[in-house]
Each structure stands twice: as C-alpha cells, then as structure tokens.
C-alpha cells in the first residue's frame, strides 16, 4: 500500500516538473528543477525498496540520488557560471506553445500506454505513463532549445524518464546492469561537459547555432 502511494506521488511530481521545465527559460532554475526531478525518481526507488525489503532497489536509488541529484547538477552549475548565457532567450518554440506541447505529451503518453497490459505483480507499472511522458518531454526540450546546457538538461529529463520506466517495468534490473547504466550515464554527462567547455573556448558561446557547418 505505502509502496504504491510513494510511486504515485513521485510519478506525479516527475510529470509536473517536466511541464514546469518546458515553460522555464532560466537555465539556473532549470538545473534546480531537474535536480528535484532526479530526487523524486531516486526517492521512489528507495521508498519502494525499503517498504518491500528489496535491497538492490535501495542501493540503486541511493547511487542515483548521489549521481543525478547532486553530482550532475553541480557539474551543470559550474558550466553555467563559466558561460555568459543564463537564459534560453530564443528557443525554437516559445514558452506558451511549449506549455501546450508539454501537456499534450502527458496526455499522449497516457493514451499510448492505456491498452498495454502489464503484470499486476509489478506494482510500479502504474508509473509507466509518467515515465514515457518524461522521456518525451526530455526529447521535446532537446529539440526546441538552442543552448548546449539546455540540451544536456533535456537529456537528463529523458534519462529520468528512462530510469522511471526501468523501475516501472521491472522494479529494477540485476544490480550489475543497474550499476553499469548509472556509470555510463555519468560519463555521458562528463563527456557532454568536456565538449561544452571546448565549444565555449572555440566558439565563445554555448549556443548550438554555431554548429551549422556540417551539411550534405
């Protein structure tokens, strides 16, 4: 009982933060929001793990908490301070239209997963619509934004959705696999950071508008 409540609350929070991210133009605030979203995902895993006595969920959740709610946001903040851009000024899609799109995504995710029959013993299956919504919101953020940092934030939202899907579909995979996934995602952010720094040095900005020379 408590497990389902935790999952429901966290899934709802993850979706709500996704919508908020779609309308936020300040990159600093976006970093806070995505950190909060990662925290909710980790809390869901830890909470369910504790209430059902599944140790590997607690370990995986705790590691996710450290990596995605603390380390990633810190890395992103360092990059933000080094860059002169703090606001996503001219995104491809304006804030109002983004709000409409984000809400449409939530509904679409609900409809798409409605007739998917998942085993009831996997209680987390109810979080699947939220997971798909978060993944699609992340993709939408990556497609509609211009700044390198915003793209990395979109990638994190996508990964949060993916992690929730992992949890919803399976209640966690074997721990080796989970550790590998977490480690790989950590390096992805580091590599993104390395290239964002190089872009800053070579182009003088973090805007992906500069990246238009390769065509055809």
């Amino acid at each position, binding site marked *: 009982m408590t497990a389902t409540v935790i999952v429901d609350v966290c899934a709802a929070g993850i979706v709500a933060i996704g919508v908020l991210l779609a309308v936020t133009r300040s990159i600093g605030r976006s970093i806070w929001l995505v950190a909060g979203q990662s925290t909710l995902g980790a809390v869901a895993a830890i909470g369910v793990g504790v209430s059902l006595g599944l140790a590997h969920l607690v370990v995986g959740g705790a590691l996710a908490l450290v990596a995605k709610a603390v380390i990633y946001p810190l890395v992103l903040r360092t990059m933000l301070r080094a860059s002169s851009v703090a606001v996503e000024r001219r995104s491809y899609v304006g804030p109002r239209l983004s709000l409409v799109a984000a809400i449409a995504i939530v509904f679409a995710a609900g409809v798409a997963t409605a007739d998917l029959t998942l085993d009831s013993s*996997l209680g987390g299956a109810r979080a699947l619509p939220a997971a798909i919504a978060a993944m699609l919101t992340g993709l939408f953020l990556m497609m509609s934004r211009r700044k390198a940092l915003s793209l990395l934030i979109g*990638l994190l939202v996508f990964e949060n959705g993916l992690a929730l899907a992992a949890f919803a579909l399976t209640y966690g995979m074997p721990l080796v696999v989970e550790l590998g*996934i977490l480690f*790989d995602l950590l390096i992805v952010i580091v590599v993104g950071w*390395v290239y964002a720094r190089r872009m800053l040095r*070579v182009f003088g900005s973090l805007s992906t508008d500069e990246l238009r020379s390769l065509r055809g």
Partner: protein
Amino acid sequence: MTTVAVLAILLPVPVAALIWFAPDRLAGRFAVLVLAIGATGSLGLALPALFDAPVRAFDGIVVLDAFGAFVLVIVIGVAAIAVVASPAYLRHEVALRPRDRARYWALMVWFIGGLSTVPLFDSLGLLWVAIEATTIVAALLVGFSRTPAAIEAAWKYVILGSVGIGFALLGTLLAYASSVRVLGETSDALAWTRLVSIAGSLDPGLVRLAFLFALVGYGTKIGLAPFHTWLPDAHSQAPGPVSALLSGATLAISLYALVRFHLVAVGTLGLAFSSTLLVAFGLLSLAVALPFIVAQGDLKRLLAYSSIEHMGLGALALGFGGPVALGGLALHLLAHGLTKASLFVAGGGLVEAGRSRRIARLSGSLSSDPVDARAFLGGSLLLSGLPPSALFASEIAILFGGFTVGWGIAAGAASILLALTAAGFLFHVGRVCFGSSRRAAGPAPGPARLRGIGLALPLVAVVVLGIWTPDPVSEVVGRVVTVLGGGGG
C-alpha cells in the same frame, strides 16, 4: 584456459587508464602490447567458438557463439588496420598538444577493448552497457582534433548517440519485463540464450515494443536512415584510424546487437514483423545514401555515406533471411569492414597530404600520393562490388537470396539502387585518383613500403575471399548462418 582468454580480452579497458598517464613516447608501444594481448585472447576464445561449440565462462555470464566470435574476428581485423595506421596519423596531425599522443592511445585502447567485449556477454543488459561505453569513448575520439567542425560532429554524436542508446535501453527493459513474467526475477532474465529458448511464451505486445525501440536505438548506432544524421559528420571528422574503426567495426557490432533482438522477436512473433521492418529501413537507407553519394563533394563524407549504404544492405539481408542471404550478410560484414577501414586510412592520408577534404581539390592523387591513392582506388573498386571482390559475392548472395525467399521486388529495387550508388561512388573516386595534380609528389606518410603493405593486405584478403572460399571459411560461415537463422550456435 577460457577464463584466461576472457580476462585477456577484458584487460585493455582498465589498462587504458594507465596509458592516459604514460609518457608520450612510451604510450604507443604500451598500447600495442596491451592490444596484442587482448587480440590473442580474442582469437583464443573465438576459434573454438567458430569451429566447435559456443564457449561459456564465468557461470554463463560470458557466452560466445559462432556469430559473436565472427564479429569479434572482424573487430580484431579492423583494429589491426587502425592501429597500424595510427603512427602516421599522429605524425601528420598538426593540432597535437603535449600529452595528446598518450591520450590518443589511451582512448584507442579503451575503444578497441570495449568493442571486443561487446560480443562476450549473454545478458542484453551488459551488452547495452558495453555498447554505451564504446559510444562514449568514440565521442571523445571523434572530436580529438579540436577543430570547430570536429567539435560540432562530436557534440551531435554525444547528443544523438545518447538518445539513440536510451531508446535501446528502453527496448532492453521491455525485453526484461517480458521475460520476468515467464522466468521470475532471476538474474538470467536478461540472458539472451534464455530469452530465445522461451521466446514462444513471451508476451507478444511487449516483445513487439521491445524490438521497435531496439530498432530505433541500435538502428541509430548502425546508421539506418532516418536515424543516420550524425554518422556522416562523425565519420568524416574523426581521425582516419578512428573512422576506420567506426565504420568497419562499430557498425558491425551495433548490427550484432540488433540481431539479438531480431531473433527473440522472430521466436515470439514469427518472421513477418521484424523482417518487414528491417527490409523497409534497409531499403530506405539505400535510397537516402544514393543522392548524397552522387552529389558529394567531400571525400570522407563520401565514405561515410557509403557506410550507410552498406549497413542498409546488411539490414536488408537480415530481413530477407534464408541461408543464402544470411551467408551473404556474414561475408559482407567481414569484407566491408576490411575494405572500408583501409579506405578510411588511405583516404585520410590523401586528405592530410592534400590539406583538403574537397574531392575537386584532391584530383591527380595517383601522381602526387601514389601509395595511398593506389590503395584508395583498389579499395574503392572492391567496395563497389566489382568482381573479383568478396563484396561482389556477398551482394549477389544477398540479392539472390532475397529473390528466392519471396522478397523479389525489394531485392530488385535494392540491386538498382546499388548499381547507381556504385556508379556515383566510382565517378568521385576517378576524380580523386586521375587527372592532373595541383601539387608536386610529397613524401608518403610514414615508411612508404610498410604503409603500402599494411593497406594492401586486407584488400588482398578481400580479393582472395571473392575468388576462392577455403573449407574452414565456408564451415565458419555455415555456423554463423545457423545462429542467424535462429538455430543456436
């Protein structure tokens, strides 16, 4: 013995960290030594798997069947070409800073070591982790030269590669969800051998979704249209030896991952579902590559689009199925890997010597850079599927196989697209090799004879395989076809 071989294959990845901190002049030797140990281990594990039975180690975490072993051998062959070409690249790269040599070798060791671990794992989850790890290190190598264009290509690769591989993870999760219902929450619920054996009792809805996401995810890594947009950028901006690995080995490895999902999907849903999708995306890739090859002005992008074409043909062969087309697929992966790797090395040499990627500016290369240009011309003729190339044999087998199993229209369309693409490709190659050169003959990159032999060996192998199939090779191809046909290894 098996355990030692597995440890030898796993060795390069941790050692790469040490090479990162090694002095520049020692890093290369250290790297070659470690890679040689890894290659020995790979061959030690692959040979019994190719000629005898699937090899198991570490409680069934490691399972290498004939197809995995075959792909492993391709990786070793392509890696050898890339490693031999690396010193010349490092001599010619102008933007090198102190310590960059050590970093280059460290990343190469990590990349090649990572690629060789992919076919080892039975678990689809660990398979994903290994592929993701190679994606990350490849991103670092793509932007190695630090030019604005290289940074752009690497950035696109990081972003698109991560999203693609994210979808592949979702496919893996769905596969896990489908098998947990049958097997319960055991640690081997992601083991591919288990999944295939219970494929008949898996939930069709979940497996269908799992294959779709795996197709999008690993399809992005294979460079299937329309998920291919990062590929021409990354393959053209990376250093020559890295492009060789990306095109020759990474694409084959990604196709290997997709094959695993395809075979589970065939077991659960029958042939029609995943085969039709593979044929459709394969044909689309052939059709998308054609105009970009015909109108191409950049030498390395020409080679990159040709990789999209050849991987499209690979997906097509997998979709056709049947022993003839699948045998063609095995031969095609091997011959394409060797030929394309040599072409990227030779083409990279031409680009470095001519200081331009533009095809129009490189004309007359045969007189100015005879060693690289001869290899480039020969390799291009082989790649275009002209006899006596092994690619001629493999393409005929794939198309003929398609006709015999009822994919006549698709095979017919593919043969027209292939012929047009080959004509467009060779036209550009002719422009590069013949004509009058704008430059005087320069020194070949590195000792000319050694480089010539290094480039010629794989091409000669492709010619030999095109004329004559030794008994061991046909035996190996037969075993690979058995795995690809869903018959176990």
